[in-house]
């Protein structure tokens, strides 16, 4: 059973409410319908109810599969606004929030913030920038986290790592040139993401071109400083480095290069790149030469699960990402 099949099964055991602010989009509605009809999620379509009902009918979908939320219905909107502004540390006040909620993306996130939905799934009509702004404005960042970032899950045929063929890597998509504090945030968020999604005990390696001082220079200094920040912030997590990639994931190399105790060296299941140049190139290498399937990018760092899919994504990919985000949301609740 592939990792994705396993995640589909896991989603079915505890279906989450996924809000779709772009449900009028044909591909998005199909993905919402099929994942809802098969019991993986509870799809909540957010928008103009009349239009959504008409489109669902025209497309031959059973309306009963969906929960449809009409953004023009004032009573429910007022209820959401009242609950939202009562939360601690929210940015927008009543009037500004009401205006933003004319956009289904913001409306969905407010529902999520007040726990009327578990996930907001968007990105087919909205740009990544739109989704990130709405997420930062409405959902906010997790305490102690200084940046939004992402991880990808690579399934690499023939790789014999500590989680079989799987390896989580980040950030290969969002945070371009993280400073040390941001790099620490990426590592911490990545550990939380894999714990929620896969029930892994995270073993996170911060990689660069040096293993424990074998190289020197400012590029390495950033990684060691980030490591220190991450370890101080979250001593409960196994985050270690600085390691070269082979010392991080190959036990025999770790044995030679890492001459001290490490829960991570040689058996990392999460690898954190020093910047986006490394991340982007590395994922392409894994895909091209390793023939890997890469799932993601999964956004992380938000207080709750926000998902931004690729605008050109086919329905099968959207469904996979919907299910992944639902499993993350269920796992986050469990892990507190």
């Amino acid at each position: 059973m592939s990792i994705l099949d396993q995640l589909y099964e896991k989603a079915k055991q505890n279906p989450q409410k996924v809000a779709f602010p772009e449900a009028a989009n044909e591909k998005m509605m199909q993905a919402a319908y099929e994942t809802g009809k098969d019991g993986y999620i509870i799809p909540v379509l957010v928008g103009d109810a009349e239009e959504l009902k008409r489109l669902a009918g025209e497309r031959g979908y059973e309306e009963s599969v969906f929960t449809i939320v009409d953004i023009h219905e004032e009573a429910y909107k007022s209820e959401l606004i009242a609950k939202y502004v009562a939360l601690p540390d929210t940015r927008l006040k009543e009037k500004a929030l009401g205006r933003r909620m004319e956009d289904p993306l913001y409306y969905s996130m407010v529902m999520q913030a007040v726990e009327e939905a578990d996930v907001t799934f968007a990105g087919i009509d909205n740009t990544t920038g739109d989704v990130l702004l709405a997420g930062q404005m409405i959902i906010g960042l997790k305490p102690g986290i200084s940046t939004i970032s992402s991880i990808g899950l690579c399934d690499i045929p023939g790789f014999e790592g500590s989680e079989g063929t799987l390896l989580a890597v980040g950030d290969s998509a969002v945070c371009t040139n993280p400073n040390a504090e941001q790099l620490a945030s990426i590592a911490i968020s990545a550990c939380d993401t894999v714990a929620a999604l896969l029930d892994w005990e995270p073993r996170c390696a911060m990689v660069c071109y040096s293993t424990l001082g074998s190289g020197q220079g400012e590029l390495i200094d950033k990684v060691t400083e980030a490591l220190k920040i991450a370890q101080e912030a979250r001593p409960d997590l196994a985050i270690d480095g600085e390691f070269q990639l082979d010392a991080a994931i190959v036990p025999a190399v770790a044995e030679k290069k890492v001459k001290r105790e490490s829960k991570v060296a040689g058996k990392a299941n999460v690898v954190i790149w020093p910047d986006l140049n490394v991340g982007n190139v590395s994922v392409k290498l894994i895909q091209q030469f390793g023939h890997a399937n890469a799932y993601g990018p999964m956004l992380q760092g938000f207080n709750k699960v926000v998902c931004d899919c690729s605008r050109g994504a086919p329905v099968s990919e959207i469904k996979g990402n919907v299910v992944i985000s639902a499993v993350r949301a269920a796992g986050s609740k469990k892990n507190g």
Partner: protein
Amino acid sequence: MDRKELEAKVLELVAASYKKEVGDLSMETSFKEDLAGASVQMVALVAEVENELDATLMLADASACATIKEFVDLVEEEL
């Protein structure tokens, strides 16, 4: 609200969002060099402007402002 009042209000909002003293800021203050803020602070500032001045800004436009003066110009256009 005239330009002077708007400038004073924006300085106050920048100070709150970037956790600085109003007295340390001026129209010439650079977001990148003097405030060294992350996008999170700019999001906070955009939200504050929406709350206090009823102007909805695009984050991309706000992030493109080099100085507080340019930011005030942007807010003024939206009012």
